[in-house]
């Protein structure tokens, strides 16, 4: 049995439900107050005979934290781009985030575009438009309702599958950690720092490819 560890970052405008989404997934759904800075969560899930460990950084959506985001998406293997289906602005903001990621993250990344609040009726973002955009950047597209707990599991599964595929397609991806359970002592793996330190592989010229391929699942 193998274990895969990856760093995931949650991005999106304020109030779209990033903290609620992760809260719902780990079973701690409550009325949340705005995140200050960022919060860190560990999630584990199984895919077939693989164990997937996600280190999730839930970032704050407010403008004043925008400049801190690189700390969290640097070295990330996956990004959940969350928007509010009833706020077109929040969807437009996703595009800004994707551009920023494409410019600043060199490794391939698993992307998921997630429209939250499908339980509300004043929808402003067309499902087709969302799907089309997601496809264009090689991301999966999800419409979910955190409130009604609809689609939350699917999002995390999609991320996990994406990581798995990325690892099997691209054997030179080094930022995703793969362990054999027999040799891997759970919880002792080096965590993925939100740090300026980059592993030497990331700085090598071999990775300075201009075109940044994004894996889709």
């Amino acid at each position, binding site marked *: 049995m193998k274990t895969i560890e990856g760093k995931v970052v949650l991005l999106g405008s304020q109030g779209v439900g990033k903290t609620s989404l992760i809260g719902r997934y780990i079973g701690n759904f409550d009325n949340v107050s*705005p995140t200050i800075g960022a919060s860190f969560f560990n999630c584990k899930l199984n895919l077939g005979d693989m164990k997937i460990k996600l280190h999730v950084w839930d970032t704050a959506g407010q*403008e004043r934290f925008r400049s801190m985001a690189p700390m969290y998406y640097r070295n990330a293997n996956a990004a959940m781009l969350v928007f509010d289906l009833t706020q077109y602005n929040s969807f437009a903001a996703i595009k800004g985030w994707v551009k920023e990621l494409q410019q600043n993250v060199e490794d391939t990344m698993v992307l998921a575009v997630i429209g939250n609040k499908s339980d509300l009726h004043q929808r402003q973002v067309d499902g087709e438009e969302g799907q089309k955009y997601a496809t264009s950047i090689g991301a999966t597209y999800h419409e979910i309702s955190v409130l009604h707990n609809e689609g939350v599991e699917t999002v995390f599964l999609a991320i996990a599958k994406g990581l798995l595929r990325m690892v099997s397609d691209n054997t030179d991806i080094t930022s995703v950690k793969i362990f054999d359970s027999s040799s891997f002592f759970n919880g002792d793996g080096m965590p993925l720092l939100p740090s300026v330190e980059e592993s030497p592989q990331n700085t090598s010229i071999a990775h300075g490819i201009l075109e940044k391929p994004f894996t889709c699942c």
Partner: protein
Amino acid sequence: MAAKESAVETIDDGIAEPGIEPGASSETMLVTTDSFDEYEQEMSSSIDGDRQMKESTGSTISEIQEDSTQDIPISASPQESGKTLSLDDAEMDDVAHRLGQSNIDGDPLRCKAWLAQKKHIFILSQAGKPIYSRYSSEDKLVTVMGVMQALVSFVQAGSDMIRSVHAGDTNFVFVVKGPLILVAVSKTLESVPQLTLQLTYVYNQIISVLTQSQLNRVYDQRRNFDLRRLLTGSERLIDHLLNFMDREPAFFLGAIKCLPLLPSMRSSITQTIIQTCAKIKNLVFAILLANNQLVTLVRMNKFFLHPMDLHIIQNLVDSSESLKTAESWTPICLPKFDSNGYMHGHVSYLSEDCQACLLLLTVDRDVFFVLSDAKQKIVEKLRRTNCLEAINESMNKPTITTADIGLPDMRHVLYKCKSTAQFWNPGFQPPYTTDEEIERLLGLYQCLHHRLHSPSRPLKLIFQQLDKETMLAWVASGFELYVTFEPLVTKPDAIEAVSKLLKWIKKEEERLFILNSPTF
């Protein structure tokens, strides 16, 4: 009004310095201040406040950072200090125009409930742009804020500074700080210095979110910047702070309350934190809070925490439910410590079964996982040594009352130890069981506090018989004491009760206060 009918007398001859200072210690981890320091600073900073603020660029944080990888923006040179504002004709026309439009739908100024609120707080920019209002959406108040800005800039034009306006039972208090104007409109009995202090707290809350340098920078770039863009999500911090100040004596006392703990337990907790964190570089403060009371505070040698900064931290913890469910990595600026830079805080609750909040504050932004590991180790050790249990026990125990201590005439008391900036108060007992009564009692304490510390005529001792209670307030060399008695208590009985109380506090001091000042 009760105060008017009361007999005030000083009883200098009846009460002597007790010779004991319960809770006193030569070691302190907090900066000790007089609660009115802020006010005096505010008064003296007056017109060239701008300049002072811009000049204070010495950054404590960069001092700590050996390798200054983080760029702390240094605020602009004091070039604009002498600038005064004037209303030009266009602006005047604008104000007049807006005034004419004031009777729009949903105008709070026409709403009785809004007008009846006891204490309004407004924040606006020097350009008159609304930023915050306590009881209504600020953008409905453009006209009122325009008037406030006009008042401030009119007085500024005469190289002077507006402090307060008094109309009937309403006080209008102004604080102009940096690029912001803060206004309190209050019908409470709080004095001008006390309201000024509260506005300063509100300002510090904003600094804590944005830093002084960022605040100055955005307004240097654009005078009519809409600060609400940067403050979104932080209004609740200001709301919470204002309610907090209405029910917590800690703010006007300028002091911190500690969670009562056996000294051996507290020292064991402190040692655990010190041992676990000793090797972590750049860790400045470790703070453990339970029920908003201080369990322990470990600091880096040379650096002290100001009670005001600790209050801001308490406000953050108390108002952020989301801190309970995850480990957070939170940038926080401590205005008294260094108003120009962020500290990074690893914030988490100890465990599901022990709701005490641990904050590890560092100047290093890349050590989240180091601190996260340290926290895990601290919790494990605390669990093994039964410290978690001890914290829980103290958190869940009903607060001791003066009746429990054996002082039947005494209803309630505030005791502040000056040398350590810590205070203690017992639990409320009847008749102070409803919110209104508690608020009324705190109001009485604030009146006494003001009279003891009145800048023009400070008093040492007040014994005052009111309608519903008798109050005693006393500033001794080592402490401040505010006592509420049954209304018919006699003076000798009151004095005897006070000395009994002081003896009790002295006996319990090691449990009620933190008497040492641990460092990493």
